[in-house]
């Protein structure tokens, strides 16, 4: 990439930082330049976030419809996978799956709810009284 072609598009990095790019200057030698963002990269990232937001919306509706427990909602909302949530809670994947059903969720003790609340960085009431 030539130095004059370094992309300077608006992106989510705005007002936060710029990225280093290695570019060729007018003498054909490499040097670094700062880029405020690249349209193509932003589009890919936006696309990924559109998918995630759709999943969060679906998770919310599933909880409101009584198909899933709030644990499932926060799991999706915070972009976790089972390895991540299992790491924070020290619960087994199979137990977490059970807690994601409304039936399994009802049986959870205060202590276990507190563990989940801590993992999601929310307070226990938000978990018990699901409101979005």
């Amino acid at each position: 990439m030539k130095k004059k072609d370094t992309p300077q598009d608006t992106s989510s990095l705005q007002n936060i930082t710029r990225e280093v790019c290695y570019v060729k200057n007018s003498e054909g030698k490499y040097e670094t330049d700062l880029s405020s963002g690249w349209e193509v990269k932003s589009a890919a990232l936006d696309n990924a976030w559109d998918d995630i937001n759709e999943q969060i919306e679906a998770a919310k509706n599933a909880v409101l419809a009584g198909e899933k427990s709030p644990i499932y909602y926060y799991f999706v909302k915070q972009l976790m996978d089972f390895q991540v949530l299992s790491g924070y809670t020290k619960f087994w994947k199979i137990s977490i799956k059970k807690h994601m059903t409304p039936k399994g969720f009802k049986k959870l003790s205060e202590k276990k709810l507190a563990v989940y609340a801590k993992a999601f960085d929310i307070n226990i009431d938000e978990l018990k009284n699901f409101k979005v």
Partner: protein
Amino acid sequence: MVKDFKHIQTAHCENGVITSLLRHRGLDFMNEPLAFGMGAGLFYLHVPILKFNGGPAISFRSMPGGIFKRTCKALNIDLERKKFKDELSAQKFLDKKLEEGIPVGCQVGVYHLTYFPKEYRFHFNAHNLIVYGKEGDNYLISDPVMETVTTLTTAELNKARFSQGMLAPRGHVYYPKKLEMLMRLLLEKQL
């Protein structure tokens, strides 16, 4: 407190941390392309059978830590690394090293880095940054992908150092230990 630490911005975090740490120890010739080359960082992987978030597994980086290991091996540098069982001992070790004036490389989870734009905060655990000081409850952070230095509170840094999931850092810290032999060699060459 580390004296005269100079923040260097790079395109990739692992190259950046090794470049900054070694430059701080007097290896003035170190820069990102050199670290990337010595560490054999060029890599590409595409596995269509392995699916991640609905797409094929693509990677344009080698295993985290690999660039470090190979650069240090090529330069005959002893790298001290440590992982911890709990946050408190990890924090104590870091504080001690900072008091001794040693900037320390840390492996962290991106999800907990509050200075990143929200759009970039995924559960990715192989990001690297340098901690070069502490002021009150704030750690002074030199993150190589950022334009300037930043800070994180003790709680935030602890969380990032003990993020969970694939490649969980478990408080992983590292810094070059012995450079004497290399420095002597360089000196001899200059003379």
